[in-house]
């Protein structure tokens, strides 16, 4: 009713007075806040829920359960961190990962381990995978569309994708770290993992939430 009254008013000051008097301003604020919360919630769904170092440790441990990992690695595991130079959180996560790993993380299961980064804005992902021999793609917080473009390449190149953004499982990323209760949870998109050439043992599948 109040909105109809405003629309019918041609007196600007009168309109403001009516708004104040009828508490409409509170309703507008409330509606705006609700929209902001919903929008923020939607954004958060695209974000990581587990600290970077913890998710990296879990992801690397989980990858050792891939029966094809040694064969694919061919002497060295190269992890490429996919990020977007224009997206602040993506760059922060990339930097944090590179900083954390440069100190001492140089092997896993006795296989040398190396990290590199790929800027999704300017680099050609397929070319980087082929040229450098990338085995694992780590997907930082990006947009779903970019995540889907990464998984399209990963399936073609048989490169396993991992991420700390649980929502990217829907975009076809093979392994994600989400949260269950107050603890981290491994989420595995089994068809995606198979399409990327990974063969995870049942030991890992038992520990994970598996999307068939």
């Amino acid at each position, binding site marked *: 009713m109040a909105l109809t009254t405003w629309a019918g008013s041609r007196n600007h000051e009168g309109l403001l007075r009516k708004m104040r008097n009828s508490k409409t301003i509170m309703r507008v604020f409330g509606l705006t806040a609700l929209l902001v919360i919903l929008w923020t919630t939607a954004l958060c769904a695209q974000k990581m829920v587990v600290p970077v170092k913890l998710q990296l*440790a879990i992801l690397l*441990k989980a990858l050792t359960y891939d029966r094809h990992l040694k064969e694919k690695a061919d002497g060295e595991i190269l992890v490429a961190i996919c990020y977007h130079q224009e997206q602040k959180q993506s760059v922060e996560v990339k930097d944090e990962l590179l900083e954390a790993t440069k100190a001492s993380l140089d092997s896993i299961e006795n296989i040398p381990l190396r990290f590199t980064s790929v800027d999704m804005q300017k680099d050609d992902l397929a070319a980087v995978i082929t040229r450098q021999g990338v085995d694992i793609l780590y997907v930082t917080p990006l947009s779903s569309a970019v995540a889907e473009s990464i998984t399209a390449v990963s399936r073609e190149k048989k490169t396993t994708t991992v991420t700390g953004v649980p929502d990217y499982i829907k975009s076809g990323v093979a392994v994600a770290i989400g*949260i*269950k209760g*107050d603890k981290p949870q491994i989420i595995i998109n089994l068809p995606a993992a198979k399409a990327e050439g990974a063969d995870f043992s049942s030991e890992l599948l038992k520990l994970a939430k598996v999307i068939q």
Partner: protein
Amino acid sequence: MRPVHMLMCLLCAAGCLLFGTVEAQTGQGVYQSDDLDDLMGMELEDLLKISVFSAARHQQKLTDSPRSVSVITREEIRRRNYRTTPEALNELVGVLVQETNYGGGSPFIRGLVGNQILILIDGIRLNNAIFRLGPNQYLNTVDINQIERIEVVRGTGSVLYGSDALGGVINIVTKSEKAGEGRIDLQGRSFVRYASADQGTIGRVEFRGSGRPWGLIGGLSYKKFGDLRAGRGIGLQTYTGYDESDADFKLNLRLKEGHQVTAALQHVRQTDVPRTDRLASGVNLKYEWNPQARDLAYAQYEASDLGSLVNTVRLALSYQTQSGTVQTILTATPDVQDEYFDRVNTLGASFQLSSTLGKRQLLTYGVEYYGDRIASSKVNVDFATGTETQAEGTFADGSTYRSMGAFLQDEIQVYRPLSLVLGARYSRFRVRANLDDPNTGSLEIRSTPHAVTGSAYALCRLTDKVTATLGVAQGFRAPDIDDLTILGSFSSGFEVPNPDLTPEQSINYEFGLRVQHSRYSGSVYYFFTDIQDMIVRGAGEFNGLPFMDYNGNGIQDPGEEDVYQRRNLGRARIQGSEAEGRLRILPFLTAIANLAWIRGDDLAADTPLRRMPPLRGKLGLDWSTTKGMWIEVYSLFAAKQDRLAPGDVSDPRIPDGGTPGYLTLNLRGGIDIRPYGNFTLGCENVTNQAYRLHGSGIDGPGINLVIGYELPVEWL
């Protein structure tokens, strides 16, 4: 309840409410950084147990607990090839495992032992109403081969776990197989262990399997130990060997995502277990448990991720039977054998929930109930006449002991470097027993003690690597059947029950510093425990008189003994310090060390407290490669303990003048050769040193070659 206790509980409860309000207002969180090297050193399953308090990158490792906690992992148990569960604790900082006999093993934590230490198996109390005050053998009724890990919390844990948790809590977590996701997996494992000092063999077969949506694990163990050969100058110790057989089974069923039911069975039976100190001293010709058994069955329902109000739910129902037959023949009466039979059936139920309040609080709360029913009898066998006579058992036959408790704990992240853990608990007990003695007639014991306890711990991250902890906590031990139903003559008089006994109460203060770095880690704790209302034997009354008035004339005549009762008269103070550290010298080489000092005083008697452990510790080097090969060289050492209580001086287990100090040198190593199995080889006490852990009835093994071989089998 004392005013200070009441005040502390009120403060804890007020704290919970206050910080609940603050949380609701600010909604801010804390991020605690972690070291990637440390995380990479953990097993995947352990990484998945790290709490992540919110979706805003807040996390807390379980090791960030403000409590002083030590954990023995499954990998350590496998590598170190321990003979028994109690012996596995002996290398932990601040823990001394006293062995009255080779089939025993009672841990001292912060100077306390027996029913002042709480033992849990998968969260279910092993302690029951007949646990006695001194060292006992019950921890050795848990098969080391079925254990996944052992968590030892030093200091009181009464708020979460109730009675008996004065000195510490030992939580034994048994092996489990998670429900599978896809195809059926079936695996097996066989394990054998041989040790030269006792000519002992241990064998175990284990199977595990999983499919969708089930997982199961089970095993059978058999152990046969001969008499133990001690170090130089002592040699073979007779009356030490015994046999044991064990069986266990656990089934996990996933009802749906986040909902799981677990059913488990455990059985332990030991035979011909001699009590060495009584036999070696010549007091008894025979003193052995034959058999001693424990059976546990429990079912548990766990649910997680239930919604915004409740995060997790755990409902457990358990039934445990602990029984033992002790056969004794005194040297003075070689024709008479006393056969004591005691059995405790315990029904347990617990309901526990946890809820996160916003981003900064984790509430753990619940209720629990345990009901013990005791069967106790005695048979006197006269070999000369061939007659058997029934007599009163050690405890009141048919007595019951029920305990109920409700608890609340709130873990609060106050602001960036500071978190608090506040807790409160109310416990109530109901004891019913009927006693009969020709000197007193029938006595009906009715007692309903209760206790209110609180605790407050703070953890402050001083830097990324250094953490300080500060805590104050109340503990209690409610009087049990052993305290409430003693009736009869002893060397100094006649003891009658005291139904007005109240719980022993303690206040524990502790301060700790921890450092955690990828190359080194360590901790130092200082604690101070004040125990009040300790249950001790003191002058008492029966029918209003301080003596047994057998002829009813109201005057103490010759032969009419003084009356004694258990009373809350004792007071003690214990303080000590515990330090431990690890330093990675080279990528594959780590130095490890720990040291613990403790001092206890009986304030009522103005003497040292009984059985206080000496200064003791461990020093070692661990060399481990990533190719599954490892070697550990270590020394266990203790200073002489000559600060003795009067009870220690008269204890035949403690040598005249005190227990001498010692230093043993030990080696162990192993190699994992897939798929042929895992080999371990150890040489304990290389220098064949003669030594005794303070208060033990036996000496430690002399030079001891320990060989283990584990063969895994994958069927499907």
